[in-house]
């Protein structure tokens, strides 16, 4: 087990949800990890890559691979950005001098819940959160990283937490990066479906492993005057017994 982990904080979490990153640090330190944040990190390049601008994304991927090249273990509170590195860097950097390094790095980058359950082998992180919670399966974490039970396993071990499943938890919330603004009417229609399913679960809190989905879901919940609120998995796991 690595004693030292490097944080990969997605750019939008850094700028818009800094508390999520703070909570990741709290949980990792509670488990005894030494946490390092390479301050030069910016964006993995996914926004450009997804919108088809591979030539703009490539220098960012090169930069990322060099920056984290020597890290033993990288942890990120985002299934989507982890997917960018693990699944898409090898495509983006095919035939590139950094290809082998990128493939190697992809095996050492872990989504937060994946790291806790599969690498650290911890399902009980000592959290307490006495609320009714439902879990939204973020698409990249579910279908690219195959993380279905890991986050749920962590939630089941939170004291006082009641985990309830919503209908169609695997259905996309409609975020989808640039799609959310380019095709906002479709994105919102999908978001409304997600809101209905969250409401049907009766949960007070909806959580996930991707802050981007949650940002969209939160906006849709409030727009539709729904009761539930969003919280990143890391923020729930950071809650300690009072």
């Amino acid at each position, binding site marked *: 087990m690595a004693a030292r982990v490097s944080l990969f904080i997605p750019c939008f979490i850094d700028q818009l949800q*800094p508390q999520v990153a703070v909570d990741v640090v709290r949980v990792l330190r509670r488990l005894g990890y030494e946490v390092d944040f390479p*301050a030069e990190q910016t964006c993995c390049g996914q926004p450009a890559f997804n919108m088809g601008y591979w030539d703009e994304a490539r220098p960012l991927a090169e930069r990322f691979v060099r920056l984290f090249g020597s890290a033993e273990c990288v942890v990120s509170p985002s299934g989507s950005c982890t997917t960018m590195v693990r699944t898409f860097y090898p495509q983006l950097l095919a035939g590139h001098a950094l290809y082998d390094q990128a493939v190697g790095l992809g095996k050492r980058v872990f989504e937060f819940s994946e790291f806790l359950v599969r690498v650290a082998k911890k399902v009980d992180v000592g959290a307490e959160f006495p609320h009714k919670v439902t879990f939204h399966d973020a698409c990249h974490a579910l279908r690219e990283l195959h993380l279905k039970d890991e986050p749920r396993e962590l939630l089941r071990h939170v004291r006082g937490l009641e985990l309830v499943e919503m209908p169609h938890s695997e259905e996309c919330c409609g975020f989808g990066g640039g799609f959310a603004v380019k095709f906002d009417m479709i994105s919102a229609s999908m978001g409304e479906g997600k809101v209905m399913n969250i409401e049907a679960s009766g949960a007070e809190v909806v959580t996930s492993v991707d802050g981007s989905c949650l940002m969209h879901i939160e906006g849709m919940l409030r727009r539709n005057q729904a009761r539930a609120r969003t919280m990143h998995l890391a923020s729930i796991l950071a809650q300690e017994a009072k």
Partner: protein
Amino acid sequence: MSNAAQEFLRRAVEKSGDETHRKIIRFNMDQYDAAFGRGHSRFADWDAARERCQQIKWDAVNHLDRYLVEFETRVKERGGHVFWAENSEEARKYVCDLAVARGVKKVVKSKSMVTEEVFLTPAMEKLGMEVFETDLGEYIVQLRQEPPYHIVTPAMHLNRGQIRDLFKEKLAGPDTEDPPELVAVARRTLRKAFFSAEMGISGANFLVADAGMVAITTNEGNGRLCTSIPKIHVVMTGIEKVVPRLQDLATLWPVLATSGTGQPITCYNTLIGGPRRDGEVDGPEEFHVVLVDNGRSELLADAEQREVLHCIRCGACLNACPVFRAVGGHTYGTIYPGPIGSVLTPHLRGLNEFQHLSFASSLCGGCTEVCPVKIDLHHHLLHNRRNAIGAGTHPGKERRGMRLFRWMMMDGGRFRVLGGLARTAIRLAHGIGLAGTALDPLRPWTRRRAPMPIPSTSFRSLWRKTNGLR
């Protein structure tokens, strides 16, 4: 923006807010999901079956030259005709010329997406022929003068009440929503057509190379009537439909049925090898197969996306797609809607005109997860996006924005300062009450979502200030 893209956006706005549409589609998709769930659990190993289908189609698509010629040879040995159509026009012309030469007045059609693709029906109608769609769903959308909404269930967007009204108006049907009675109305009209048509047209679910036979799958038996009663039978299909061996159907048939409708096997599975032979009591006098290329060879040459030709047109990716459910089949403005259509159409009808569909996706991967021949659909959407940007289909403004984004992200300090400035500006705007208004700097986001609070500090600044949060 292309005309097709503008039209797509206009219809997407309309449909994604249409509650009635949403309810009908949700209901039908829930029915499908339940049937599919039961269906695939009947397999001892569904994923192994998918892998087998993938292998069969890989073999076929990578050896099209061999298998198509084998198929052609066998069909010709039995007295059938095979015509290779390079494009829609050649395909249409062959069938129209044949129909004119034989004095055809009435045509019955079994469901075929390729005939839609080459716009065969309008061409025949223009020549004064009467063309009947005989699949019930297809017949319904034909009466409504609409294209199919879905490649397997063409009238999925309609409820019983709408079908009752349609039959009342067009077929003097009774005032009932009872499905058997409604089916009986259609059957009365279509039976007459079956027995008076001179030509039957069908598609093909598979072309079996070693047997030299066409495999057709229907649930209503209309396929058999179209292909055995009229004196001429024309099969029109894409070149990618060939499979190597008859025994391949042992896996492909149940997998197609399960993915298409959740059935263990479709009700009527027919193999046809040629015209009626001496001593046979039924079957057509003439048998023609039109093999349509229409851009498929070019797709075959594209090593990255060649596997798109594996598609067996089961429709599972449409059902799994949250975008399809939100906007509906007609919004796409393409013959093949949904994920497979978004991937395929730029290859069949031009990247410039149809690249927007590859961007109209959240890339959730639901399609890839269900595809019975394991086409990496959502990653092909990414490839199409890259190809579109490479071809310069997007405005320079967007490209400049992306360059600026890259420039900002190439330096940690630059990102910290510019990110901080942007947040401050947004916080100021929100501070004077612009959040969620037309003047909100985050307007593209807040147009359809409640505004979000913008934090005063970034994580990187926190980390710096507190020396690692300590």
